[in-house]
């Protein structure tokens, strides 16, 4: 186990995030949204909170694709998680996307992470 702070494209990042404390998540240089098998947001870090202009208490406990990030509710993002869950397979893919942070179109890279079974799932956000 290394003590280096993980970067956006570190392999096997899902396990590291699972094991991270809130302070460790907040120290990351990219946005982290963690959610469960029912799409309910469980983890939300400082970078993401700052970029979106929403405090964690407005987001945690809310359904991700309808109440937090409706912009991802299409075949490019939401359906990828759905398909992975349906096929019981692992998901680790990075795509170019545009988020509407504070109503500005912001070009980002999204890394979509889901373990097989889909109990722990993450959308990671890095500006490009």
């Amino acid at each position, binding site marked *: 186990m290394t003590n280096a702070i993980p970067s956006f494209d570190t392999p096997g990042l899902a396990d590291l995030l699972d094991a991270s404390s809130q302070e460790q998540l907040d120290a990351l240089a990219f946005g982290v949204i963690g959610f469960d098998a029912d799409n309910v947001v469980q983890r939300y870090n400082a970078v993401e909170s700052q970029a979106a202009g*929403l405090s964690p208490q*407005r987001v945690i406990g809310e359904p991700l694709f309808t109440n937090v990030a*409706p912009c991802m509710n299409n*075949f*490019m993002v939401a359906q990828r998680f759905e398909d992975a869950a349906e096929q019981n397979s692992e998901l680790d893919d990075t795509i170019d996307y*545009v988020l*509407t942070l504070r109503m500005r179109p912001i*070009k980002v890279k999204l890394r979509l992470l889901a373990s097989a079974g889909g109990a722990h799932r993450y959308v990671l956000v890095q500006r490009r």
Partner: protein
Amino acid sequence: MLPDDSAEQLRAEHEALIQFLYLAPVGLVQASLDGEIAMINPISAQLLMPLSPDGCLTNLFAALEGVAPGLRLQCAQYPRAQGMVFEGLHIHLRGAENGKRAPQILSLTLLKLDEARIMAVIQDVTAEVRRERQLRQSDAWLNAILTRISDYALVSIDRLGRIVDWNESIARVTGFGEHVIGSPYSVFYPPGAMTPEHLLDRLREADRNGWSLDEGLRLRADASQFWASALIAPLPDREAFGIDDPQAPAYALILRDISDKRAASEKRRQAAFCDHLTGLANRRAFFEAAELELERAAHTPRLLALVLFDADMFKNVNDRYGHPAGDRVLVDLADALRDSFRIVDTVARLGGEEFAVLLPSTGEEEALAGAERLRALVATRLVASDAGEIAYTVSAGVAVLAPSAGGERDAAAGIDDLIKRADQALYLAKGRGRNCVASWSSGLSDNEDIPKRSRNAG
């Protein structure tokens, strides 16, 4: 400086306002008159990202160019300083490629705020449009019944669509005499407006729905034409006329001359179903016609051809002569298409310089001949511009859905597959040096994906 609790209150209000916009269940975009996006909410990104050809959302018109060409022009041509440029414009998407629950139809409203800004409202209206289409049919039916009928022809037809007897009303409205008995009811249609298959489709639709209604040009005995509404209804007690007699009356055809109402109904139709620049059918009209045609073919197998046309090296025309001249070339191509195909064919502009013609009951040979005729015609035409006359050419790809010997359809069952095949044929034609027509064959694999943008380069 604000006291602490007042600053905190402002921050909380700001956050609530941001969340309100994040959660708004419709897409909202503020942009410049050129479409450069200044503000955009999440639902807009949800709906626009799958359409955006370059994967970014910097320009609203660029994001929609592939499915709704000409928005930039329409916005630029809007004459007033502020106001509604258009409201609830329906945009048809090619849905099947993008997953099962992907939207099929978007509604777009464009409001000009001032000389610098526009506001757009975007909604997924797929489900609403389906319901509305059913209502529209019922409306047409009520309208046909409730509108004061000044004169009508009442025609009895048999189960194969042949005219069974003659009466005074037929003579009054159409001028046809008794000799019309035994002819199919398509004698009332101008040449090219009816196929033998469509003739039977209407009877089947009347059986299924209780009625079948359409509006369009009809023919009098002296070859003059009039705008008519035609209602076909099954006769309620037709069994009484004899089940075994194929010439017994089975349906009533009511033909009304509504020439005076044509202007109003045409205007309504144009607003919803016509391409703004060329006046051809738009994507919405094309996909509705294709859906209906496939539905009919699923019931009674028959041939169906699709030709995709694409103006060659069109970018060069725009670059060299300017966009207004490029638009004139598109209008000229649209005129040539309209004149070359039958009334029963659907001639549509799908986007940019891409056009489609759907030919019911038409095989490969005929469709190829039609496409070749158009290609040759275009090669002889010149379009005037400020910088001299413009010569241009088109390439075409032809694909045909044919029922196999067993009556089963082949693998390409949907309109998306048919378009894909015609697209592959078009790509082949471009590869052969353009100004050329090619037909799809099974050698061009169904699975081989041609990058959509690659042939747009020329």
